[in-house]
């Protein structure tokens, strides 16, 4: 998992073998506040999520990659801004 896909949250979703609905449930469980449709729009790049929302999605995906035995390939925007 070290060299993940270059860009695009939906590519990560596909690699994580999650449907949009499954990812939304995980995102919601982790505290995400956006609707299912809004999440899809974030994934496709049709809407831009807040940094916090992006990082909740990223973490939902990363926890999935961990379950699959990988590391955390999806970068966090919050960490980039701090460093």
């Amino acid at each position, binding site marked *: 998992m070290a060299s993940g896909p270059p860009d695009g949250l939906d590519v990560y979703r596909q690699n994580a073998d999650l449907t949009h609905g499954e990812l939304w449930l995980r995102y919601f469980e982790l505290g995400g*506040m956006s609707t299912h449709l809004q999440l899809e729009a974030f994934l496709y790049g049709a809407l831009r999520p807040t940094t916090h929302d992006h990082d909740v999605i990223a973490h939902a995906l990363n926890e999935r990659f961990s379950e699959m035995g990988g590391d955390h390939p999806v970068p966090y925007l919050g960490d980039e801004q701090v460093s």
Partner: protein
Amino acid sequence: MTGSDRTSPAFDINATVVGDQLVLALRGELDIHAAPDLSGYLDTVISQGHVNIALDLSELDFLDASGLSVIAGETIRLKLSGGSLIIRDASVQISHLLDITGFTKMISVEEPETTLGPPGRLGPEEPGHPHNSPGDSGGPELTQQLRTVTSIPSNDEVVDGALRLVVSLARATVGGADGVSVSLRRRGHLSTVAASDQTITEMDVGQYASGEGPCVDAAAEGRWFHAGSLADETRWPDFVPKAQALGINAILSSPLLAHDVPVGALNIYSRTTNAFAPKDQELASIFASEASTILGDAGLDITEEQLASKLAEVLRTRQVIALAQGVLMERDGVGEHDAYTALRRFSVEHGSPLSQRARDIVESAHRPHRGPGPRPSCTVCGRPVEIPGATVCSSECFDRQVGIHHAGDDG
């Protein structure tokens, strides 16, 4: 060989040989009327020795289950004879149909050269992000949304169409199969959503009514039921005589599983005793797996009870995370998002789920209220709430709030 070789009012096939490949450009509408044209055409060209065939769908406007059935059947036939059939340049709508029916797993589909953008239907219904308080546990809107993403899809017709396709393929390819059906549990009841003929439907309905039979058992228990000879069968005393009266002597029922939950059965009936050889049983397994994939993709996986349980679990985790955020905000004097980031970083650094870290923080945070002003009251029992940001005083009250009942609870 090239030219317009076959026409019907709304369907046309144009053949071109490119190297060792025969490219068939399909134009118009491939529906129940045109499917026999395509089937007959493919029979002819395959018998002439063409075993590497590409279907160019760039000018195909419509494709239904009967057309898909022909394509899938010929694909299997060509694979078995060492050849191949691929699809190229399908429209977005037809590609979507191939995806949703699971056929992209079975048939090679070449993408068009032009890159398509994301679907145009997406867009914000409302700007910004509504922000609930940490204690907000959702309510009817959330239940509706959860149902939308996890429960029975609105496109039942598409799912049923795909299942009819599986039935027709199984009927055509499993040796000894005289009738095939798919039973599916919807809204708590088994019903036949696809069947090769009316007799088979009646036989299924008889099983649902009496509550016994291989189909009912496969759908309930999630495992195989094979009755090679009904004359020797003792498991279903009510059902067996009825099946025999309809001329059936062997039955193979395979469970359909969506996300490991049994949701129905693929039933194959034969007039011939011991009709299903091991190879046919293996084929049946493949079709059951294919149907399960369709159901899994469609999200047809969760009963009302399971939905409620899943909802409670999701809400509980979400609440614990919100509580942990509150603890960190109070303890460290940080904002909501910084508290979340701290949880998330711990999760990443230690390789443990964020929810586990949140639980640990909440469990270690039972200490007296130190903030300014009076302590809030539990929205369930009215006792003081000790944990900053919480709206309930304990996990028991949270369970009651979201409708989880424990053994011994009153009412």
